[in-house]
Every structure is written in C-alpha cells, then in structure tokens.
C-alpha cells in the first residue's frame, strides 16, 4: 500500500506541475454550471431537477478529468516506465487513490456551487446526502480508473470513454439521483437503506472486478 501511496504522490506532484487534469476539470465545471444557469434564466425549477442536474454535471465532469489517469501516461509514453517500476496492483491502487482525491475535490466543488447558485437545491437530510456522496464518489473513482486503463491504448480515446462509461456508470448515477431525491425529501437513513446497500454493493463489485481485470488490461 505504501508503494501505491508513493505512486499517487508522484502523480500528484506531476499534476501540480503540469495541471493536466485539474485545469480541464475546473473549466468544465464552470462552463457546465454557467450553461445551466443561462438556459434556466428567470425560470423557477423544481428541487428534484437540481438534484438530477447535479449528478449530470458530475457524470460529464468525470468523463473530462478522471480519464486522464492512464491516458496521460500513454500520451507521454511513460507507460513502459510504470511497467518497469511497479506491480500491476500497485499501479492500479496508486491511480485509484489519485482519482479518489480528484473526484472528492471535484464533487465537493460542484455541490457547493450548486447550493450557492440554485435556490431550489435544498438538502433536508444532510447525513443521507453525505453517505450517498461518499459511496457515490468511490464508485465513480473506481469505474473511471478501470475505464481509463481500458481506453488508454485505443486510438479513439475521446469517443470511447463516454461510450464505455455510460453503461458502467448509469446504474450508479440512477441510484445517486434517487438518494439525492430522498435526501431532499428529508427521508431518514434507515428508510433509504436499500439504495445505500445497492451503492455499497456497486463499489465492492466494481472494485473487485477492476483489480481482477487490471492485470490483463495492463499487460497488453
């Protein structure tokens, strides 16, 4: 695990110098939220719609930023270097930590901007929303990392990421939208247990499948 942490540290320091993903993410978030604000204008929108829009923005932001984990290594030609210094499990864990940090920062920024800019975005049960936020972010980070590894070697990376991520992330986004709606209604955590359990199951299944698959993806 310590090796994976150092791989993450290398990526983080590299990101701070190159701003490969952070700038792209920040610009995407600003543009997406601005477009929504302009398109709404003076219209009154329902609180459920703002909850849905939140996860739509998060879904597309994940596409623009999180795919960089392996794509940036492939584009710079450093994939072979990684092969020569770390075991596949270390590489995947290091990239996953990097995407986890990025997705938590990104989604926290989007959520704060939503609560500041949309009057209708009111969460009545904050604890339920935080639970959905935490497990949802873990799921998005795991899925984005393995999809990034798959598309890194393809010629059409830009188009392949949305195509692959749509069926993989759709069940997660649907559960998250549902949980956000319940949090807006002020439902208790115990009454939303089924959705939270489904979220945790998604994370566990995606995490296990990704670790098992990564060896094969990484070698060829």
């Amino acid at each position, binding site marked *: 695990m310590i090796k994976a942490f150092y791989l993450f540290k290398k990526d983080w320091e*590299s990101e701070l110098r190159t701003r490969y993903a952070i700038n792209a993410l920040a610009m995407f978030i600003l543009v997406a939220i601005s477009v929504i604000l302009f398109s709404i204008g003076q219209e009154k929108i329902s609180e459920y719609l703002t909850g849905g829009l939140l996860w739509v923005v998060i879904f597309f932001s994940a596409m623009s930023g999180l795919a960089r984990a392996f794509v940036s290594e492939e584009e710079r030609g450093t994939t072979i270097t990684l092969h020569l210094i770390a075991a596949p499990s270390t590489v995947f864990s290091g990239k996953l930590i990097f995407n986890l940090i990025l997705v938590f920062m990104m989604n926290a920024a989007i959520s704060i901007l939503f609560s500041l800019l949309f009057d209708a975005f009111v969460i009545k049960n904050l604890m339920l929303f935080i639970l959905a936020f935490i497990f949802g972010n873990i799921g998005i980070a795991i899925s984005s990392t393995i999809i990034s590894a798959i598309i890194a070697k393809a010629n059409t990376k830009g188009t392949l990421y949305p195509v692959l991520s749509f069926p993989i992330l759709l069940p997660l986004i649907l559960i998250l939208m549902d949980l956000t709606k319940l949090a807006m209604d002020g439902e208790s955590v115990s009454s939303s247990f089924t959705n939270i359990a489904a979220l945790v199951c998604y994370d566990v299944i995606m995490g296990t499948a990704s670790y098992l698959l990564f060896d094969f993806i990484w070698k060829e």
Partner: protein
Amino acid sequence: MTDYSLHLESLTKIFGRRLVFDKLTYNFLPGKVYGISGPNGSGKSTLSKIIAGIITPTTGKVLHKSNAKIVKPEELHNLIGFVSPYLVLYDEFTAHENLLHFARIRGVKLDSGREDDLLNKMGIYNRRNDLVKAYSSGMKQRLKFVFALLHNPKLLILDEPTSNLDNSGKDAVYELLKSELHDNVIIIASNEDGDLAKCNEVIYLENYKIKNGQ
C-alpha cells in the same frame, strides 16, 4: 556465482495476423553478455519487451529463476533493468526527482551514493537538478542507464543502448557494462557492430527463428 538465470520456452508472438517469431527456445546464463541481432522487424524489441514482462507472448513461457525458484510476475520489476529509445522518463521532474520517485515506488530506499556514482559515470551529475525536459536526447538516454541500474538488477535488457549517444556516451555505456556485469545477465538488442562486439554470444533472429548462436 549468481542464483539468477533466464529461460525462454517455445516463445511465439503474433501481432494481429503477423507472426513475429515462432517457438523460440533459449537459455541465458549468468555472467554473460548476450546480443540479439537481426533485420528490422525481426522482433528484437518485441522479444526484449516480452523478456522484461512488458508484453505477453502469444504462446510459450519466459522463466526467470532466482534461488532455483521461478520469480513471480509481480516481483519481476525489481529484478530487471531496461533501457531503450522508446522508454520515456517524466519530463516535469528533475533527474534526481525521477530517481527518488522510482525508488520509493519500488519500495526501496534511494541509495544516494550509488545514484551519484552512476550519474557521474554517465556524465550528467552536474545536471541532476535540472528538469528532464531541458535535457538533450543523448542526456535522456544517459539518464535511462542510471534509472536501469540504480536498483542493482539481475537482468539488464538494453534495446539499442547507444542510440542518440555521442562517442563519449558510448564509451561510458561500455565501461558501465564491464563494471555492472558481475554475475548478472545482460542482453543487448542491437544491430550496431560496436554494441555486438561487447557480447559473449549473439542470437540472430531471422524468418521467425533464431538463425544461429555465435
């Protein structure tokens, strides 16, 4: 004598529908420098990458043995040093930062004495704190040797090791080969006469097979 040896067992590699080589079998013994030669497209680089565990063969096996035990694939990276023109280090870091990150990710402490010694031998010690993006292609190639040797690998794979190097760089590489051979295995994939002259045995790849061992 070292406890490391390398065995290729009936290796075949096919890219799409193109056969690169077919059923290669060879044993590499410790304390020797091996050359891999052959015309362009004969599979020298592909064979180097397969031996290093970067890509997998279509069929056949590469067995790395240490202490008479087969090395597990997940432990292979600490046993191998690799240099090639297509190996790229991180441009946004200095040479020292690159080496520090690599040592930490490998899970070993950076040996500063060895780092300085290798940087000195390769003639880039004074530029160790410059960003790699400011290096010339020859200096980058010299740094790759430090990267490949810093963790004292048992197997050193050099794919076109003297490309981009001037005469002093080539001399530095040949001196390094002498001092680092010990009981290790060194494999040089090249068509350069100067490189192959340093080898104890040369494998010639042609028409998908090992043509001869010299």
